[in-house]
């Protein structure tokens, strides 16, 4: 158990180092940092002095070590475009993206799991066929089109919900939340649904596939023969055994949620990290791109680490066997 956690921790550290290396290579080799930082009027001698001061002439490994060290201390450098510290720029954007992502994930779970169970139990039903067809269409419709459609119907035609921005937000000690105002919740609904739809279809299909497999297993047949009530059979015996893959997917989906939040944030002008990342690509703002990657990777590694620990809690078999 301790060995398992330690192994996971070490792996996570390596992943983070690899991502940091990627960010560092971006910064160092994509364009020349000095020409980005200085204007045309800076003399060559001044440029060379700056290069020496910043340590860009030092050996490669040394530079990377310093880069990583700076990051660990929270120093993420400065944006080429706005000249602000990148750490500050990203930090102010994190709450918007996280709140959006969490609500989207919750939507996908609370709709996706029941729908998956239902379609598995009634594979030949009319409702099942309709749901499956809908999910196929849902997977095929690009996220941004779903966003535009929602804006059109609920924002423009019906005028029920706001179509851009976060609405009213409240500051809670550096965390800007939209959970505390009615306005904020209203602004959150459409983007969260847009972001959640794709994950929802994934969750549903997975739960359905797992449920169908579990329902055919011997212990379910035995439980049926023993006369276990249907509700108890479905939800206690069957659903509980589908939870391990479902939790895996939640961990993996978090990456998807973050990535698609780039698209969703662009459609709804949601002031999160994704919008910042898009702007930084358009203006080739390498430091912001690099730090965005590192931050995303950090969340990703964190969530996956938690998921791995959850396995051990949920599935007793894993406490004995060593999983790698």
């Amino acid at each position, binding site marked *: 158990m301790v060995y398992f956690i330690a192994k996971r921790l070490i792996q996570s550290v390596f992943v983070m180092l690899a991502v940091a290396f990627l960010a560092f290579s*971006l910064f160092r080799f994509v364009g020349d940092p000095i020409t980005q930082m200085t204007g045309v009027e800076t003399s060559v001698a001044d440029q060379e002095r700056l290069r020496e001061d910043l340590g860009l002439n030092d050996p490669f490994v040394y530079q990377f070590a310093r880069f990583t060290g700076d990051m660990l201390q929270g120093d993420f450098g400065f944006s080429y475009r706005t000249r602000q510290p990148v750490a500050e720029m990203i930090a102010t954007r994190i709450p918007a993206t996280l709140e959006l992502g969490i609500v989207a994930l919750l939507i996908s779970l609370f709709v996706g799991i029941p729908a998956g169970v239902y379609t598995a139990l009634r594979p030949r039903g009319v409702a099942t066929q309709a749901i499956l067809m809908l999910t196929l269409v849902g*997977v*095929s419709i690009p996220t941004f089109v779903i966003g535009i459609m929602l804006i059109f119907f609920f924002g423009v035609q019906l005028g029920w919900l706001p179509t851009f921005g976060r609405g009213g937000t409240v500051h809670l000690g550096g965390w800007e939340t939209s959970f505390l105002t009615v306005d904020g919740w209203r602004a959150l609904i459409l983007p969260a649904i847009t972001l959640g739809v794709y994950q929802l279809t994934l969750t549903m299909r997975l739960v359905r596939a797992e449920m169908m497999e579990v329902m055919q297993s011997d212990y379910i047949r035995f439980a049926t023969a023993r006369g276990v009530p249907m509700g108890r059979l479905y939800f206690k015996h069957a659903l509980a055994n589908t939870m391990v893959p479902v939790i895996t997917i939640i961990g993996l989906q978090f990456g998807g949620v973050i990535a698609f939040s780039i698209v969703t944030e*662009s459609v709804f002008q949601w002031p999160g990290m994704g919008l910042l*990342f898009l702007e930084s690509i358009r203006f080739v703002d390498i430091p912001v791109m690099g730090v965005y990657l590192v931050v*995303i990777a950090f969340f990703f590694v964190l969530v996956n680490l938690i998921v791995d620990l959850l396995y051990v809690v949920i599935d007793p078999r894993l406490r004995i066997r060593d999983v790698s």
Partner: protein
Amino acid sequence: MRDFIKRYEGLYLFSRSPAVIIAAIVGLAIIIGAVFAPWIAPVNPYDLSSFSLMDGLLPPVWEEFGTERFLLGTDDQGRDMISSILYGARLSLIIGVSAMIIATVLGVGLGLAAGYFGGRFDAVVMRIADIQLALPAILTALLIDGIARGILPPEVQEDVRVAVLTIAIALSLWVNFARTARASTFVQMNKEYVQAAVMQGQHPIRVMFVHILPNILGPLLVIMTVDLASAILLEATLSFLGIGLPADSPSLGTLIRIGMQFLLSGEWWILWIPTLFLVALVVSINVVGDFLRDVFNPRLR
């Protein structure tokens, strides 16, 4: 003989599923329209002399004020919508298909080699694949695009846009092929015909591509259709985000991005017609892909 039955069975199932037939017809119609766009489309939308502001914002022919000159109306510049859409679909398909082919060649090559040689090579390829699988495709594509913007000199940026986009999409989709090819190769490696070929001293490349590849084509074909849909979607998304193709050579995604400006005003056709085309194209490819998966994997039926 077995091959014949398999093919016959697929055709039989095809004739029994109306949804798949409709999807195949719609998809084929769009693809043919896109491929033959230069001959079918009324005008060439890239030619600046083919449109004038005087014809701007005309609605489709069945609406009031619509004219037969512009069957699906015009955009704010006076460009014929149907020509823009056909040429746009053409670009989307060119990028989607080339990206899919590059991803197939790269992924299948690496996957076959990983499955065949195993050991350290396999470990390295699969680690890279794992890392990339953790990064969603859209993020990979955006990142590669951003790097290309930083590396390439600004003068050539516009000219190589299509190539950059294609490669960015291909590099974010190869993993699926590699994993499937590797897994299937592992299965084949234990079969006697492979061992016989190896023992005859045939060259590994010959064993991989002449003996193993034909036997693992089924699952790869399914991934190709699914990934074609993904590639088209990725391109549309990137163009919609303003990272992909510029407004003077629009793909379907760019057209939708332009159409967004008319979401609040009455000109619905500028936004919804390209959107309809994109969705119809992707949905039909996915439906056909789903069907193929069922045919090649009888267990799911």
